[in-house]
């Protein structure tokens, strides 16, 4: 489903190279975890997948569902099935959460040539998914992410993901800021979305998330390159020994 080949990228503004030849292949139905030290380029990779213009790809390619992903605008990527759950979801004052959800869902439906959701259908969907994720109606009445606690923001991201039903879910440190119960609730929400047609790339620092969302493959990203790939036991090993061995390798 997703194939990243020899991806090199730098910060558009100052030219600093962040990704230095990333190769990654994710098949439908798989869950890949990406771990790695702070500043190794994990969020950068996720932003590049989503189409953030702060970064410039200098070499390599990203093929998604057989298409050159890098040629698509961010909204076209979303409509094509890419979803990034942000490490730091931003507050958007003045944009009502419900209005935003409806606009996003209908924009994607429109891009796919589907009919617009009726208000009752939309409300029903939102109520159902919010309940699963323990997102209160009070939160949904507020402007998007405004005044949400760290954990609430993360839950709101997963709510959006459940509503938009992407084929590629990229989760950037969704576990950070979640309390123990929220971690379980959010993980259940994510697991519900696991399906043979859907792939997930889960960026995390901790095994505890991977206890809930069990990955098929674990990668270590260091200094802009994937330096080690293994099974789920690799995460356990990292938890024990840290990144020291792999930082050398990079």
């Amino acid at each position, binding site marked *: 489903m997703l194939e990243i080949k020899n991806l090199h990228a730098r910060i558009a503004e100052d030219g600093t190279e962040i990704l230095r030849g990333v190769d990654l292949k994710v098949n439908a139905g798989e869950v890949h975890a990406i771990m790695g030290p702070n500043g190794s380029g994990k969020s950068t990779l996720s932003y590049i997948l989503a189409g953030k213009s702060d970064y410039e790809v200098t070499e390599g390619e990203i093929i998604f569902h057989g298409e050159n992903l890098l040629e698509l605008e961010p909204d076209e990527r979303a409509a094509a099935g890419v979803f990034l759950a942000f490490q730091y979801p931003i507050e958007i004052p003045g944009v009502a959460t419900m209005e*935003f959800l409806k606009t996003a869902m209908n924009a994607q439906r429109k891009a796919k040539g589907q009919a617009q959701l009726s208000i009752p259908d939309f409300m029903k969907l939102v109520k159902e998914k919010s309940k699963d994720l323990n997102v209160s109606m009070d939160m949904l009445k507020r*402007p998007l992410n405004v005044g949400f606690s760290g954990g609430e923001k993360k839950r709101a991201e997963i709510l959006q993901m459940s509503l938009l039903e992407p084929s590629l879910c990229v989760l950037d440190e969704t576990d950070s800021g979640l309390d123990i119960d929220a971690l379980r609730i959010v993980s259940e929400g994510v697991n519900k979305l696991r399906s043979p047609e859907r792939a997930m790339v889960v960026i995390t620092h901790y095994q505890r998330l991977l206890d809930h969302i069990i990955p098929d493959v674990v990668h270590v990203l260091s200094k802009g390159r994937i330096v080690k790939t293994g099974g789920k036991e690799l995460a356990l090993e990292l938890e024990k020994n840290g990144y020291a061995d792999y930082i050398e390798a990079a």
Partner: protein
Amino acid sequence: MTAPTQISHTQAESDLLARFDTAKGDLSGSTAVSDLRVAAAEQIKTKGLPHRRVEEYKYTDLRAYMKSAAPLAPKASAAEAKALADAENAYGELERFRIVVANGTYLAEVSDLEALAAEGVTVTDFAAALDQDTAADLLATPPSAGTDGVLALNTAFVQGGVVITVKEGADVSRPVELVHVSTAEGAIVTRNRINVAKGAKLKMLESFAGTTGTGETNVVFDYKIADNAEFATTRLVVGATEGARLLTTLATIGADAIFKILGFMAGPAFARNQQFVAFEGENSEAKLYGVSMARDRCLADQTLIIDHAVPHCNSREYFKTVLDDEARGVYQGRINVAQHAQKSDGEMMTQALLLSEGPEMANKPELEIFADDVLCAHGATSGQIDEDLLFYLRARGIPEAEARTLLVLAFLSEAIEEFEEEYVTDFLEQRVRDWLAGK
């Protein structure tokens, strides 16, 4: 004694003086009113139109903008005026009473007088009132307005308008729309007195329909808000017009009263909404909001002076401006707090959003405080759409244009929502969408 220095008149100024000579015989008014008119015309003659070297018009050079001055609009037929007001229907489906002023003249026959009378609202002709002995009072201007050039133009040429009086304690059940219609090209100059008696409640909707061509629209709204009264008005100035739109608020507020206004401007080539508001009684509240949108080479000016002349009053001034292309936005606001006006609370904020590199915003919030126990603050910001917010929305599948619309709307809605007159909220937000869609 030195004679006033003679300025060399622009075409528009010569036209205005000629217009005065032609029109003065037809313009209504008692002797005192005629004297005021002559004095105002004399001011135009000696000082000319307000221009950039007049402090208050530094960014809004009316003299440079007006290439000529059209004659005053001819009298309108009631049928035509009604048809046009119905067709433009500025406030859509909103249930309301309507008062029509067409080509500068009040048209009783197409205004909802009976329904208004039943609500305790009387409406009379401002032109007729000018003929009365006490009429000079109707043209009085507050000290803070000084020798304002736009007011002088209004005094010289005022054709008519309405006197709306809400009787004591009346709570008018629907908003009252005052629509200024132009059925023919030509300047319209009106003045309206709105008396809200003690304890009365009134919500107004102001609108403009039709086109004046190159003729200026010069309208004064003079509100007298008595003790314990509550008043709110929405001033809608939309549509592409070539003639300058010059709107003036004069307001005096009694004790324990509420005065609220939102000035919404989108489209005119040259628009100034200037407001002179004064507290005359304690424990009152004035809330002034502004939403301005301008593109191409248009100018949108929101200027105000609020006089905290008495203690214990609160004022809030919250203005938002969105600019694109080569447009210019102006906000000049001043809170004056008199020496004995202790416990005054004034909070002024002006924010501009620039949609491209071309536009310019002049933000000038000022405080002039002579009392020592007051709470006054002001702020000004000017910036572009936040790319990170835009990216977040786009990453959820919202196309760029729609995402921008959402963000601009979010920016402007903060003022629209704080105005807290729910019956106009959706409607004004739709106007923002229309403007963004280029309508």
